Structure formats: structure tokens, C-alpha cells
């Protein structure tokens, strides 16, 4: 094989790789678009009027997750599954956003912490790497941490909207989350940095609960305690 032949052959490899990346980028762009739409839907819960509409907003988001699943299904066809980590960077960001959105929907619906399995199911992907396109632990955790900061905002806006119970429930939830994270031994990586932000969310929510308590507006502390 001459040098020219060899390089032509190699160019084949490189082109194939570039084509895959181009394809992935395009699908990821549509995913980002859908993610932004879901976000817009869910962000309306911060509006005073938005609190009553939580169920309908969640339903709307759930519908959009159908689109997400179709788009991820499309994404899966773009590269051999064993090369997940080769192209991970392309979708890592949007996957964390989607994990956040799934976690947020589940929280709004049931006030519980979404499991990694549930996120995977909502996004139509796997938990176990061997089975196919999956959700990395790190990406799941990043999504959960983004939600925590959204919840601290929600606690504030709940009060503004006149809902004085929600902050207490959020407070319990976030405390549990915090102890959960304290079990983890995180390296000095982006996740660790995000986790450092959690303590500000915890503090913020505690202050909301405080404001309600001192004014006697925290009606059902027992209920909150039971949870």
C-alpha cells in the first residue's frame, strides 16, 4: 500500500468520524431545543398564577418528553453504542439538563426524589451501561443538583404566591438530599463544585421556613416533620 493509498484510507476513517459527530450535533441541537421548551413550560410554576396549574404544566412537560424520547432514539442510531464515551461530550450537557427537567417534573408531581431508573425511563434510555445508551451516575447527580437550586427559587416564589406550606416540604426534601450527598466522596471535579452550591440552597430555604415560622405562617410543622 503506497503512502497515498494509506492516507486515502485513513481519510475514510476521519470522514466517517466527522460525519458521525455532525449527525450527533444535529440531533443534540433538536434535543436542546426541546429541553428549552420543557424548561419554559416548567418555569411558569414560578409565576403567582402558576401554582394551580402545576398538574397541567407537568402533563404538558410529560408530553414534550415523548419528543425527547423520539429524539434520543434518533440519537442512538447515529453511532455504535459501545462508543458512548467517545462522543459523550456532545450530549453530556443536554443530558444533565434533561435529567434536571425529569427530576423537576417528578418532584412537582409527587414531591419525591426521582430515581436514576425513573429518569432513564422518562428519557427512554438505560441505567446500565452494558444495555445501551445510558445515564451516567454523574449526569444523574448533576441533574438533581440543578433541581435543588430551582427548588430554592420555588420556595421563595411559593411564599410570594401565598402558599406557605410548600416551603416546609421543600425544606425537608432538600435536607434529605443534602445528607444523601454527604455520603458521597466526590473528587475535585465539576460535580463537586455544583455540590458546593447545594449548601446555599439549603440555607436559603431554611431562611424561608424561618420567616414563615416566626410569623406563625408555617401551619403544619407536624405534617412536615412526619414526612
Amino acid at each position, binding site marked *: 500500500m503506497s503512502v497515498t493509498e494509506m492516507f486515502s484510507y485513513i481519510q475514510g476513517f476521519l470522514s466517517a468520524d466527522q460525519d458521525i459527530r455532525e449527525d450527533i450535533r444535529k440531533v443534540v441541537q433538536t434535543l*436542546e431545543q426541546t429541553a*428549552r*421548551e420543557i*424548561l*419554559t413550560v416548567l*418555569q*411558569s410554576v*414560578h*409565576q*403567582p398564577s402558576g401554582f394551580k396549574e402545576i398538574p397541567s404544566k407537568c402533563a404538558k412537560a410529560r408530553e414534550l418528553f415523548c419528543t425527547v424520547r423520539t429524539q434520543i432514539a434518533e440519537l442512538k442510531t447515529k453511532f455504535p453504542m459501545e462508543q458512548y464515551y467517545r462522543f459523550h461530550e456532545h450530549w453530556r450537557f443536554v443530558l444533565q439538563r434533561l435529567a434536571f427537567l425529569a427530576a423537576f417534573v417528578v418532584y412537582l408531581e409527587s414531591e419525591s426524589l426521582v430515581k436514576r431508573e425513573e429518569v432513564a425511563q422518562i428519557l427512554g434510555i438505560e441505567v446500565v451501561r452494558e444495555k445501551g445508551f445510558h445515564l451516567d451516575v454523574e449526569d444523574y447527580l448533576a441533574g438533581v443538583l440543578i433541581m435543588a437550586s430551582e427548588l430554592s*427559587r420555588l420556595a*421563595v*416564589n411559593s*411564599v*410570594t404566591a*401565598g402558599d*406557605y406550606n410548600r416551603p416546609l416540604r421543600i425544606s425537608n426534601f432538600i435536607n434529605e438530599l443534602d445528607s444523601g450527598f454527604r455520603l458521597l466522596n466526590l473528587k475535585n471535579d465539576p460535580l463537586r463544585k455544583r455540590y458546593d452550591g447545594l449548601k446555599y440552597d439549603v440555607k436559603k430555604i431554611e431562611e*424561608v421556613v424561618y*420567616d*414563615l415560622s416566626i*410569623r406563625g*405562617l408555617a401551619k403544619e410543622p407536624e405534617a412536615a416533620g412526619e414526612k
Partner: protein
Amino acid sequence: KTRRKKYDAQDNFSVMLKRRVILFQQELDTKHDKYERLVKISRDVTIESKRTIFLLHRVTTVPDAEDVLNEADIKLDGVRQKIGQIAEELKGEDIYQFHRAFTPGIQEYVEAVSFLHYIRHRCLISLEEINARLVFMNTEKADPKVLTFQVTSSDYLLGVADLTGELMRMCISSVGNGDIDTPFQLSQFLRQIHDGFSYIGNTGPYEVSKKLHTLRQSLGKVEDACYTLRVRGSEIPKHMLADVFSSRTTLIDPEEGVV
């Protein structure tokens, strides 16, 4: 003889080249000079727009807001005249060629004009409305012609992103002045702008993403202010609240109104 000729040819090349280079130089100089003039006008636009914004912040305290708004209008007319000069410079040019020279000024103008618009109409000025006011008459008496300046959507976005900082300041001032409605209005408006920007996400110009963080912080401050208003207001029935405030106002200044 042959040699002589050769050097004539050589000289021709040289002379022609020089003639061409001088033309290039003119082209380059014209461009650089124009760029430099635009930078200078843009600095003036920035300064005057900033002053207008400062003026507009007085609106929450003076007795007659309309006076301030009219004064701001006059100031912005001056700014628009400056933008007219930019338009004049750009006549027949590809505006994107000089965009970097004047974008800071235009963004600041968008910020000022949209701030004024919000105070007056409580809504977001549109790009069309902004551009509609940037139509100028050519000053040459021989050939009066209409000149227009088009703010780009990216300058519009960047100006609006900065507007949110001013809205936040206005919100905090309002609370300080005992105005309990404006903060809630502002928080809804800011939330809409925030949601708008998050809808656009990273498809917008790069500089927007850098400003998103500040925007989020401003929104947080406004939401916190509304929260505080609500939580404190919760200790007294709504109708009593109005009483408290009206009595507070009377108390501070019964005759002349709030200064």
C-alpha cells in the same frame, strides 16, 4: 539598449505597483478613519444613554414622573441625532463591516430607550418600535433623503439583557419608597424576560450567555424583594395594609407629597 529597456519595464512595474498601492492606501485609510469616527460617536452615545438611564431612575421619587420622562425623551432625541450621524457614516456601507465600532453605544441606547418605554407603557419595546424611531432626514439641502438605522437583533438582545439590571434597581428603589405594586409588576416582567432568554438559550449571540448569569441574579433579587413584601404583609390583613401605607405617606409628607 536592451538593458535600458528592461529597466524601463521594471520601472513601469514599480510605478504601476506604487500607483495601485496608493489606491489601496486610500481605501484602507478611508475605512480606518470611518471606523475611528464611529468609535468616537459610539462613546458619546454610550455616555448620553447612561445619563438618560440615571435620569429615569428618578422617576420613582419625583412628584411628576411625566416631567422626567419628557426630559428623558429630549435626551434620547439627542442620542438619536448621534445615531443619525452613525447612519450618515454608514450610508451605502455594509453596516456589519463597522459593527464592532458602534455596537457598545447602540446596546446602551437600546437599554435606555427600552427602560423609558417600560416605565411609560409597562411593556417591552419591540425591535421594530426601536428601529421605527431611527429614521433620519439627510441634512444635505441639495438632496434631501431618508436615512435609516437598523439595530440588529443581537444588539437588541444585549441591550435588553442589560435593561434587566436597571429594572432590578428600580424594583429595589420602589420597595424603599413604600410602593408595593411596582415590585410585583417588575418581578413578573423580569421573569418573562428571563424565561424569554432561557427559551433562546445558547442559540443567541455569545455575549448573551455571559450576561445570563447577571440576569439570573437580578431576577433573584427581585423575587426576594417580592417575597419579603409578601411575608411581611402577611402579618396584617390586606385592607389594613393600605391604611398603614396611606398613613405612612401622610405622616412623611402631608402637604407637598413625597419629594
